[in-house]
């Protein structure tokens, strides 16, 4: 092929990559919801667990603290911030303790008699009104007069205040300057609920930005600081730390790779050509995922490119085996059986994740399988015509020759394989530690200091428990609200006995229709109320007729239809009730959030006696889910391991050769598992993926070692290829292993250990006899 033809082909390929990149970029929707990487639910209960973990009121709640300045300034800022956030579309509701009556829209004011519990234990008769008016007179000569006076004509029984107090959280922090403060009286506290799900870092980031901006303009004193805590804040933090560190390590690894490749091949054109299959593979993988699932998760993107980094090895095999007298196309043809076996078996291993039941893993699987296949095929068919003939021959290297001879004199301790397998199995079987990490949060652990800060804020604010939750199932909203009322009565006993600090549920804000109708029926008619009021006003300094607005409100309340969930749209109650009363598939679910649960057993007893009420232990349930999921993934991996053996057997057509090729990989997997376990590392999903990656690499090394021909120059070329491949992979993953983040470290340590172990074992067990 002439120089010009090569240039044209190169330009066409680069053009195709650019075009594919443009198409992919235009259609690519990157998702960030971490739940994509959580197990997919099988039962309605599991679905609820996952929904609660990511979307429940507790997961959406952010706890805010404003401190660092004077308490007065903090209180003023709290008020201004609450007002700003109430208008911000990122937030469903905000609470700072201010029981201002403005929380209630004017058109719903008359509903106060149906919503507040007053009429459950008293009647609006002369004696009650008389008592109330006497209290109001005392209020008017107390310092609270200024605050209450404007309300008296409309609400002499202060029903609205009663309602506002009913709606305050069960266990409130102390009020200073009208807003919540911590016990020390230094930090103003707020609770907000985001519209975004807790595990959607992108949307949480937007909410966090809105929050910061609102705080900046609300703060009355530059020394004030805002602290934000909660699942959403953590997911933003962890995503950004992961991203930041991955980028930094990735840049370092790329620089290292370039240097390594330049040293190995001393050719700039080869360096550039080596990138083409990988770039094509990545884009093809992305395109495939886009077509299959519409969105590509950020983790698939980041992690997928790490996994198909293996594809960088394919051109290297080609380059290392290239020498003066050889047509690159013939070279590719000769290498192809070995290379294809490696590609096919790695693809089979990753195919296991397609059936894992985890949507994110299925995406990852599609991405990797398509990517690796494309990399293999382009290396075989498109790359060879571009490779300049001639160039440096790795077979000429004296150093490699000496190395090969030194290796030849190494023993071939077949007993070593058996011994290693035995020791590894012993470690795995006899160690008392649990092998697996079941916590969902274990994948992205939040720094200890932040968890403690969160727990402290949660205690101060009396925020709901993120672990336990009651779930009430019902045919319709009223059914659920009625049951919530029944459960609430029993929970009150737990609160009285100290087993529980408090709880929250939808019926607290929106009593069932039956209760509202009962209260409405208890309202006196206009004439009767007028008489009672006249009797009560007589003998007080209140002017007759002063309470006309009160009479009008009661009269209006008597004809109001009971308030239902649909009537709350656009009111501040909508968010409160909406988070606790959910409609799904023509089926209603009510949630009871719990605060300060001290006695789970007592709660379990109460719940056990209630039909259609479940105590959800999110931690336990999610751990069960993860464990179940892992079992499924392990089964998938087992099936793919069998397939993989079949492929290798078919390709090599010899039991002995297949055994030699597979032994290092299988042993390495055992050794790495044992080493990790022995070092006290609990294994998670990412370790599993990394093990598969390491196994795929090991298989490649073994295949090429096994293939090494008798001719010394060709042996040196093979050694060169395997050395460059393993060194470059080791470099990348050793860097990842230094990461401070558990996910990156898990992958880095596992693959780096796997590469070393695979190389050494392939050397000791797979290398062909060199006695000749």
């Amino acid at each position: 092929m002439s120089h010009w033809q090569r240039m044209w082909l190169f330009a066409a390929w680069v053009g195709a990559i650019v075009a594919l990149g443009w198409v992919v970029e235009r259609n690519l929707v990157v998702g960030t919801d971490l739940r994509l990487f959580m197990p997919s639910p099988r039962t309605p209960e599991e679905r609820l667990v996952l929904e609660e973990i990511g979307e429940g009121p507790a997961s959406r709640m952010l706890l805010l603290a404003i401190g660092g300045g004077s308490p007065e300034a903090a209180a003023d800022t709290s008020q201004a911030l609450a007002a700003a956030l109430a208008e911000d579309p990122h937030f469903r509701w905000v609470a700072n303790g201010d029981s201002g009556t403005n929380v209630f829209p004017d058109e719903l004011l008359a509903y106060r008699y149906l919503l507040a519990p007053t009429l459950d234990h008293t009647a609006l008769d002369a004696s009650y009104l008389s008592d109330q008016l006497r209290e109001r007179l005392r209020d008017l000569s107390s310092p609270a007069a200024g605050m209450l006076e404007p309300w008296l004509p409309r609400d002499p029984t202060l029903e609205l205040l009663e309602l506002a107090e009913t709606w305050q959280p069960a266990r409130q922090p102390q009020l200073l300057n009208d807003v919540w403060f911590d016990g020390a009286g230094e930090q103003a506290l707020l609770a907000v609920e985001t519209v975004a799900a807790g595990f959607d870092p992108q949307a949480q980031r937007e909410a966090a930005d809105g929050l910061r901006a609102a705080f900046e303009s609300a703060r009355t004193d530059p020394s004030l600081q805002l602290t934000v805590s909660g699942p959403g804040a953590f997911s933003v933090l962890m995503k950004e730390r992961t991203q930041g560190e991955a980028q930094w390590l990735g840049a370092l690894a790329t620089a290292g790779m370039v240097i390594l490749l330049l040293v190995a091949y001393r050719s700039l054109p080869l360096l550039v050509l080596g990138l083409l299959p990988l770039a094509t593979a990545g884009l093809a993988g992305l395109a495939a995922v886009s077509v299959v699932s519409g969105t590509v998760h950020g983790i698939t993107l980041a992690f997928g490119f790490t996994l198909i980094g293996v594809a960088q090895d394919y051109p290297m095999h080609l380059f290392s085996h290239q020498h003066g007298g050889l047509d690159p196309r013939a070279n590719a043809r000769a290498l192809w059986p070995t290379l294809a076996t490696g590609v096919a078996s790695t693809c089979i291993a990753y195919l296991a994740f397609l059936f894992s039941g985890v949507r994110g893993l299925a995406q990852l699987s599609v991405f990797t399988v398509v990517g690796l296949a494309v990399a293999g095929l382009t290396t075989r068919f498109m790359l060879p015509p571009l490779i300049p003939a001639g160039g440096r021959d790795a077979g000429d290297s004296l150093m490699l020759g000496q190395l090969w001879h030194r290796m030849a004199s190494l023993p071939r301790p077949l007993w070593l394989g058996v011994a290693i397998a035995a020791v590894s199995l012993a470690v795995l079987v006899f160690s008392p530690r649990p092998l697996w990490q079941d916590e969902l949060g274990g994948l992205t652990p939040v720094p200890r200091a932040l968890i403690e800060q969160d727990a402290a804020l949660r205690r101060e604010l009396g925020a709901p428990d993120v672990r336990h939750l009651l779930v009430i199932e019902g045919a319709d909203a009223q059914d659920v609200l009625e049951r919530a009322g029944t459960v609430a009565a029993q929970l009150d006993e737990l609160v009285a006995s100290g087993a529980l600090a408090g709880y929250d549920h939808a019926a607290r804000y929106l009593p069932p229709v039956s209760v509202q109708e009962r209260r409405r029926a208890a309202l006196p008619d206009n004439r009767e109320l007028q008489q009672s009021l006249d009797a009560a006003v007589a003998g007080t300094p209140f002017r007759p007729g002063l309470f006309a607005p009160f009479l009008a409100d009661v009269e209006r309340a008597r004809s109001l239809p009971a308030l239902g969930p649909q009537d709350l749209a656009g009111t501040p109650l909508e968010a409160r009730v909406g988070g606790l009363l959910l409609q799904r598939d023509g089926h209603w679910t009510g949630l009871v959030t719990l605060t300060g649960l001290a006695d789970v057993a007592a709660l379990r007893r109460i719940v056990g006696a209630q039909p259609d009420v479940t105590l959800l232990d999110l931690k336990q349930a999610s751990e069960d889910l993860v464990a179940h999921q892992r079992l499924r993934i392990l089964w998938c991996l087992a099936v793919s391991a069998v397939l993989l053996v079949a492929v290798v057997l078919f390709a090599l057509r010899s039991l002995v050769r297949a055994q030699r090729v597979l032994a290092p990989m299988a042993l390495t997997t055992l050794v790495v598992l044992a080493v990790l376990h022995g070092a006290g590392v609990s294994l998670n999903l990412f370790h599993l993926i990394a093990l598969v990656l390491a196994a795929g690499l090991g298989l490649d090394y073994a295949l090429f070692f096994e293939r090494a021909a008798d001719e010394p120059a060709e042996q040196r070329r093979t050694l060169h290829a395997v050395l460059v491949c393993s060194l470059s992979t080791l470099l990348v993953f050793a860097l990842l292993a230094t990461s401070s983040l558990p996910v990156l470290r898990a992958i880095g340590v596992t693959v780096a250990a796997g590469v070393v172990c695979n190389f050494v074992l392939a050397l000791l067990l797979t290398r062909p006899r060199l006695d000749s």
Partner: protein
Amino acid sequence: MVAGELEHRDDGALIRRVQQPYRETTTLLGENVTVERDGSRPRRFSLDRAPELRGMLNSFGAMLKGDRATLEQHFEIASSESGNAWHIDLVPRGDRLRARLARVRVDGHANRANCMTMEEPDGDATVMLIGVADRTKLPSPMEREQLQSWCVRAGAR
């Protein structure tokens, strides 16, 4: 019409204790007010919502101590006397307070203060009669005019 006592506690709290005709205790500490009355839940709110207390807090202590500088800091002061009778008008300087409290007027005679009147912008007023031990000497009927003239004359008893 309630009777009781005021106490300045060592920790800086001002306690307004009503003893008759019912019992009620208002505790003012820092910016926070708590009103507790027998038979009902304590009510907590900030000083901002109780302008008369703010006025009292700012003026009372300073006047007792004769601390004119502190008083000047919070109020514009105007005073007049005729014979032994005198009165001091205190108009709040801060906009925030003035929106809730129009004026504090202290009436006195010779070397004692008789009344402290807190006037709100809407015309309402709270009158505190100071040091009345004998309730039979109170004005009657208890209306603004009678109270006013009582406050001016009281020292002549």
